[in-house]
């Protein structure tokens, strides 16, 4: 990310995310406290009114996302954030907002589930964040930051993507990135005015056709037509939104695929291995987890003896990797559970095993697993 010596500030990830939103022109935030994203609601309660926007601590996550629905329909850049159990509650509203084709940003600072789980960082909401999550056929543009800088910058970008495609955009982060402090280059998120939306509800109806946002299509033919329209949009997003990062992949024999917090630990492990003349390992980090950066991974996957997918869950993104890579290259998976983090040493040990035996059965991911 940018290191141009601009205006830098040491910030918490959750605060940086909110700053990115306000600088992107967000003027409505509706939230409900849940750990580990409480800094977001707290930050917005102070800074959103100062920016001339609306903050409401809603009575529930369900109410919060539907307030976002209303604000988004009214043409305002609107946001909510929560953590795993709260996101489950918001899925109802996200499904409606996606169907009404309205833009908004929803951040999930993932904790360990299922159920109440615990408040430690986890990546168990990957499916929820990339498969739609709520009922029906829909997708959300989902971005996974790996630093505090990216919390600001990807949230900032998420508003543009949401507006461009008139679709909810999700930030899929976790308790580590939400809570840790790092410098943010404020020059990368200059304050801007959001676009004017001629489809928004509100006053001024004497000068335009009335605007209606609905999600109900009782006639199956009409519903099918709408589905085809949505599918065409999602196909367009698949073609146009492919964010990823590569690290030391050119000469690598093993490719690690990891996102968010796992990718940061992987990067440290790779650096250590390279310094110590260990196995040559590279990192492919999906930033947009939906759409998954499939083309790039497909292009490069045969360059490696094997792929190692690292996730803080029991195997979700590895299914996307498998869908892309198929049987071209052996795929291995290692998961971390309970809200625990990988250590660089664990990753080095995994890489050593795979360097000695790229078909090491201990971590081989197969379709019959």
């Amino acid at each position, binding site marked *: 990310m940018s290191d141009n010596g601009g205006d830098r500030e040491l910030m918490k990830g959750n605060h940086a995310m909110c700053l990115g939103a306000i600088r992107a022109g967000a*003027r*409505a935030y509706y939230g409900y406290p849940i750990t580990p994203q409480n800094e977001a609601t707290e930050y917005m309660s102070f800074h959103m009114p100062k920016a001339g926007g609306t903050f409401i601590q*809603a009575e529930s996550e369900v109410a919060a996302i539907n307030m976002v*629905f*209303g604000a988004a*329909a009214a043409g305002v850049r609107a946001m909510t954030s929560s953590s795993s159990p709260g996101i489950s509650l918001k899925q109802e509203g996200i499904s409606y907002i996606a169907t*009404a084709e309205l833009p908004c940003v929803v951040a999930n600072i993932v904790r360990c589930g299922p159920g109440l789980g615990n408040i430690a960082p986890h990546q168990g909401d990957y499916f929820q964040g990339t498969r739609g999550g709520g009922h029906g056929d829909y997708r959300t543009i989902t971005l996974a930051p790996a630093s505090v800088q990216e919390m600001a910058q990807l949230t900032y970008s998420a508003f543009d993507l949401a507006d461009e495609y008139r679709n909810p955009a999700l930030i899929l982060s976790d308790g580590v990135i939400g809570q840790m402090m790092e410098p943010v280059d404020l020059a990368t998120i200059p304050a801007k005015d959001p676009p004017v939306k001629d489809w928004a*509800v*509100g006053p001024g109806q004497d000068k335009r056709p*009335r605007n209606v946002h609905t999600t109900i299509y009782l006639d199956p033919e009409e519903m099918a037509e709408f589905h085809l329209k949505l599918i065409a949009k999602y196909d367009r997003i698949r073609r146009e939104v492919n964010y990823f990062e590569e690290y030391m992949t050119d000469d690598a024999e093993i490719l690690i695929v990891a996102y968010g917090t796992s990718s940061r630990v992987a990067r440290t492990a790779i650096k250590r291995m390279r310094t110590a003349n260990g196995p040559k390992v590279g990192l492919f980090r999906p930033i947009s987890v939906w759409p998954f950066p499939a083309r790039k991974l497909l292009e490069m996957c045969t360059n490696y003896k094997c792929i190692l997918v690292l996730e803080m869950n029991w195997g979700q993104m590895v299914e996307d990797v498998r869908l892309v890579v198929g049987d071209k290259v052996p795929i291995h998976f290692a998961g971390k559970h309970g809200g625990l983090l990988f250590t660089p040493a664990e990753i080095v040990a995994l890489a050593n095993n795979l360097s000695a035996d790229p078909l090491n059965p201990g971590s081989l991911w197969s379709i019959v697993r």
Partner: protein
Amino acid sequence: MEALADSKERCEQIVFDRPDALTSRGYTYCPGCGHGTIHRLVAELIDEFGLKDRTVGMASVGCSVFSYWFFDCDFISCAHGRAMANATGVKRAHPDAFVFTYQGDGDLASIGMAETIHAANRGELITVIFVNNAIYGMTGGQMAPTTLENMVTTTSPLGRDPLLVGHPIRVVEMLSLLEGVAFAARASVSSAKNTLKAKALMKKAFRAQLEKKGFGIIEILSNCNTNWNKSPIEANEWIDAEMVKVFPLGVYKDVFAGEKGKKDE
């Protein structure tokens, strides 16, 4: 249509016409149902206050899910129970919009009760049109939170037993206790006389928003002759005979009470 236009021109004075705030689309409601009357009252007031160009309606889930077909203004079709949350988002974004929700008893008093109480308590500057027919209409006659004791529905086939499932919820009485509520009243459209009273009370629910007094709600007792298995006339008689015993008509909170020179009722 031309013949109609000609006949209109020949009229010296039109005394009854479709309000501007209604589209020309035919209602999807059952014949005899009160929704058509209530729609008309809302539309007449939108016209009378000159609000059509800045009104945003919130359709709920239930029989009135397609109310955006009938009102000629901006609309959002909301999820079941969430209309007041949507309304909050719209009103806070556009304080100069006139925002109303149109909700049934299942929507407002069951799945949306949290949204109802909290929007009222925040004193959201919205106007709530709450249609209470004591039953779930669209889904085929199941028990509602407002279903009367011993009333038979498809999910209370032996009659509602309050010991098992509780008593009918009196929404406006409950909301009138909240500071944020400026106006709360219950009316009925069971007769022409009651309908006129309903309009006068609805007007105050409009004014609560327009004059920035607070949350305004009007509960309107309406029939569901189809699911009550009654003729429309019998159904309206049943409102007057039975429903009003549990849901008394009247004003429960009125920020305008005592004002001079304005006679709405």
